[in-house]
C-alpha cells in the first residue's frame, strides 16, 4: 500500500516529537509517472519498465521502518505509515 506519512524521530518511550513528512503529496506524482510510463511503452519500453518499477516500489513502502544511530549514539527511526 502507498505510504501516507514518513515519520522521522527518536524511538523509545518518549518518542518526541516525530517529524511527519507528508508522503501522500507524492501520490499525484506517482499517477503522473505511471501515465508517462504508459505513453513511453511503445517508443522506449525499457525506460517505461524502469519507471513503472520505481513507482511500484514506492507503492509498497508502507510498513518499512529503519532504525539508525546518529554520531551521538542516539537512535533515529524512519518509519513509513
Amino acid at each position, binding site marked *: 500500500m502507498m505510504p*501516507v506519512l514518513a*515519520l522521522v524521530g527518536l524511538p*523509545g518511550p*518518549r518518542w518526541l516529537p516525530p517529524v511527519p513528512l507528508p508522503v*501522500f503529496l507524492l501520490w499525484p506524482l506517482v499517477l503522473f509517472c505511471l501515465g508517462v510510463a504508459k505513453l513511453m511503452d511503445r517508443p522506449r519500453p525499457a525506460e517505461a519498465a524502469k519507471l513503472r*518499477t520505481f513507482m*511500484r516500489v514506492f507503492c*509498497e*513502502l508502507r*510498513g518499512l521502518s529503519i532504525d539508525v544511530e546518529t554520531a551521538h549514539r542516539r537512535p533515529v527511526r524512519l518509519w513509513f505509515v
Partner: protein
Amino acid sequence: MSREREKILKMVAEGTITPEDGERLLSQLDSGAKKPLGESTGDSGDRPSAPLKYLRVVVDGNDKVNVRVPIGLIRTGIKLTTLMPLSASEHLSEHGIDLAQFNNLDGEELVEALRDLKVDVDSEDGDVIRVFCE
C-alpha cells in the same frame, strides 16, 4: 487515511503511546482490514499458512540495527535487479552471481521460500545478527 489510523498516529505524536505500541496497533488494524481476503477466521493455533508481513534484520551489540521491510516491497523489489547497470551485472556474473535469475522468480515463490528463513550470527565483536520473517 482512515480515522483509526489517524487516531493512532496522533497518540504516537503526543507521546500517549510508544511507537512500538503504535506499530502494533497499526499492524492489527491492517490485518483486521485484510481479514476477508485472507479468510483467516477462527483460531487455528499455529498456522503455517499465515501470511508473512515483514522481513526483519536485527543487530544487537555494539552496532544497533533494526530494519523492518514489508514483504510486498520485497516482492516488487526483486524486479529492481533489472534496473542495475549492465556493467555491474557483468561484474557480478564474473563471480558466479547471475541476477537474471531473479527476473524469472515468481514473487509468491520467493515469499514462500522466505517463510523458513532464519539467520542467526554471533560475530566475534559481540554483535548478534538475526534475519527472519514474521
